[in-house]
């Protein structure tokens, strides 16, 4: 019976080999660790959905490489003296994927449709929930778009460019079906949204009529030259399978990889491992409302007991760069002041513990296994704190449970990562707030709250730098939590893939080529 089966197996095996080898030469196979939630930018989204959206669509402005706002579909813009009216002039010659030209009227329609979408993730940024509300979007002529706010808002363009808002992508009305329901994105980006097999794969094809801007790649703007015909995003939830597929050539890029896996692959010449910090934050949160941790001396003792460079190095397998500031290392606002930190001084810990009235009470560090960095941080921090005489225990939670506790402030210490923030003030906004207003607030000092409000209303420039410096000094004085490092973009690609890097938590697919 076994002998009879062998020829059949051989046929199947041969077919498998054939199938594996018939892939189109200029198709880039990229891992998607989970399927995208929806195809509509800014609506029912997550980081992977944003990643797709930003390759397919464009907004009026975008974030540049250093977190600055740069033009995208808008060639230029002006802000009225009262700070309430933004007038954008559209670039000439831009077209949608269906060939229709980008006009001011279509931009107006697109903005209005997105602002009215029930599940628009960023509604509060534009309806007055977080500052100003958009009162009107007008199109006085084909190339001019005028957006009016009810009050000035220095963050308006930054909110507009945010990835979680889909970069306020301009979509053609053909994106909707006859009933006005969302169908598929018809945008202006360098890739066209192709076949989407839910739970399996998504194809992004080269937009043949796309005209790249002059210059270099600049964050989510700049030169977007597409050098492959097709991107095949393959849903591969299992990390081990993804690495095996990378080795076999079934995948060319794994955009998000754990630091442990990346360090394993970094010595293999068949792969290119890239790692760079982004605006996300690796932190050890402290609950300042907790009876033990409400003492500033206690919090300072914890920080002095932690050898942070060592902790970051081990937790990230040598890929992380310590950063004591909420201003990311790559930001234009990361000044010398931002490099100031509380030094590691375990010898000072006993005196601080005594001053705090600490009597060996157990402190619980919450963590999860979804993100290995969090677990590593918890384990290493626990060891360092125990050595310094601070009694700690680790509680490993499922991610949704830890997030729920975070949302309600239900923790003493928590090894927690914040996702990428495109602007430093958004990082501060995530942390600074009144605990009465927001359970997830970590730092509820009135002075810090006022400073963050002020930064939100201050345009780019020296005044903003001074405010960030003040905030950092205040943070060091109060130590409401432990900022360890910026989160990392760790990607791995096959050696024959040219110019790929994951940037600020997103898979940037233009400028990438295959040289097999």
């Amino acid at each position, binding site marked *: 019976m076994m002998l009879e089966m062998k020829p059949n197996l051989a046929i199947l095996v041969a077919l498998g080999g054939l199938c594996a080898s018939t892939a189109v030469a200029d198709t880039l196979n990229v891992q998607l660790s989970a399927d995208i939630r929806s195809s509509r930018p800014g609506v029912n989204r997550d980081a992977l959905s944003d990643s797709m959206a930003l390759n397919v669509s464009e907004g009026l402005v975008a974030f540049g490489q250093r977190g600055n706002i740069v033009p995208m579909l808008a060639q230029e813009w002006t802000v009225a003296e009262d700070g309430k009216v933004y007038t954008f002039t559209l670039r000439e010659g831009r077209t949608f994927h269906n060939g229709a030209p980008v006009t001011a009227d279509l931009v107006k329609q697109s903005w209005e449709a997105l602002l009215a979408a029930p599940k628009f993730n960023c*509604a509060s940024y534009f309806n007055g929930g977080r500052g100003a509300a958009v009162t009107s979007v007008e199109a006085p002529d084909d190339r001019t778009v005028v957006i009016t706010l009810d009050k000035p808002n220095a963050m308006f363009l930054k909110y507009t460019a945010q990835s979680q808002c889909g970069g306020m992508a301009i979509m053609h009305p053909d994106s909707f079906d006859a009933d006005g329901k969302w169908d598929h994105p018809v945008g202006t980006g360098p890739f066209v949204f192709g076949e989407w097999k839910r739970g399996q794969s998504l194809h992004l094809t080269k937009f043949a009529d796309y005209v790249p801007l002059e210059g270099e790649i600049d964050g989510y703007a700049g030169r977007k030259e597409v050098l492959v015909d097709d991107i095949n995003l393959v849903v591969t939830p299992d990390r081990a399978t993804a690495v*095996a597929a990378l080795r*076999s050539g*079934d995948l060319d890029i794994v955009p998000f990889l754990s630091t442990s896996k990346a360090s394993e692959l970094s010595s293999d010449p068949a792969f290119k491992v890239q790692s760079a910090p982004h605006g996300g934050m690796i932190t050890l949160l402290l609950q300042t409302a907790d009876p033990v941790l409400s003492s500033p001396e206690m919090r300072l003792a914890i920080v002095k007991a932690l050898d942070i460079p060592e902790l970051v190095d081990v937790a990230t397998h040598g890929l992380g760069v310590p950063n004591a500031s909420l201003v990311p290392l790559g930001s234009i606002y990361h000044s010398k002041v931002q490099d100031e930190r509380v030094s590691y001084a375990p010898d000072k810990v006993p005196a601080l513990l005594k001053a705090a009235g600490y009597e060996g009470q157990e402190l619980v560090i919450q963590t999860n296994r979804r993100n290995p960095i969090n677990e590593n941080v918890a384990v290493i921090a626990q060891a360092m704190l125990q050595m310094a005489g601070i009694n700690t225990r680790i509680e490993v939670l499922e991610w949704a449970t830890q997030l729920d506790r975070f949302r309600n402030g239900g923790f003493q210490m928590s090894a*927690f990562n914040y996702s990428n923030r495109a602007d430093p003030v958004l990082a501060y906004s995530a942390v600074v707030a009144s605990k009465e207003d927001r359970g997830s607030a970590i730092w509820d000092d009135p002075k810090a709250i006022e400073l963050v409000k002020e930064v939100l209303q201050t345009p780019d420039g020296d005044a903003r730098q001074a405010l960030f410096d003040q905030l950092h000094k205040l943070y060091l004085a109060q130590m409401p939590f432990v900022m360890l490092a910026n989160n990392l973009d760790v990607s791995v690609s096959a050696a024959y893939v040219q110019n790929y890097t994951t940037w600020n938590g997103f898979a940037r697919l233009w400028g990438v080529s295959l040289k097999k």
Partner: protein
Amino acid sequence: MIKFVLSRLLSAVPTLFLVSVAVFTLIRLIPGDPVALMLGDNVDPQVYAAMSHQLGLDRPIPVQFVLWLKSLLSGDLGRSITSDQEVLPLVLHRFAISAQLVLVAVTIATVFAVPLGMLAAWRQNSAFDLGVVVGGTILMSIPTFWMGLMMLLFFGLQLGWLPVLGYVSLGENFWDGAVYLLMPVATLVLHETGILVRMARASTLDVLRLDYVTHARAKGLSEGQVLRRHVARNAFGPTWTLLGLILGNLLGGVAVVETVFTIPGLGRLIVESIFGRDYPVLQGCLLFVAITYVVVNLIVDLCYPIFDPRVKSA
């Protein structure tokens, strides 16, 4: 017969109701909710409240349950919170994928395991028997994720014979589909063979010790005749029952195998909906799994008299 089927189906109604209550309640008792997961660390209480209201999650749980039950009775399982797809077509689509994998695997495993187990019992205490017992124990002890990964690494990576990831439906392209299903099916076949071969061997041993088998041998029937005519059918009964349980279990989704081999089946959908707290999808999936279990076991019970006529008379 019809009366039996109807009574079995009717008796399943309270079971399914209890399952639905349990599923609905338990998933909501787990900390974390879909809105919090959607917002992640961007927690804005106003946005949270607005989205919870939009999804009806701010209503009391009994009210949510009654509304869900009402929709359920009209055949509407709701929409996925994460993907916004209708739950019923989504579950059916994913079930069809899992069913292809499971039915092929269980059929092949049965074809191999049952004769192997019977032969091992017939040759009890021989080297062949020892080999079958040891082999079966090893196969059933190896976790499917490990076996799957080993297959991927060997056939996909080392030999390069089979694609490491991807999926094509058999209906879309039979041969391509077969190629993609080869390793996951083999993984399941090996694991289930280990279980079935032991059951087939044990039940055959029980039958071989019965008086009527001794009587058949005393009549002068050959061993082959004894096995085929008198042992095989009777010994298959317990294995058949086990098959029903295995099928019911596997048709509910083989999450591990589906995850390792990137197959978008029902098991993976269940896992994703648990981690994403996608209540409507999870409720729909688990209710569907419960119904599948009931139906599969009903079919098993209806077929049982083929192997044991005493059941029919009872």
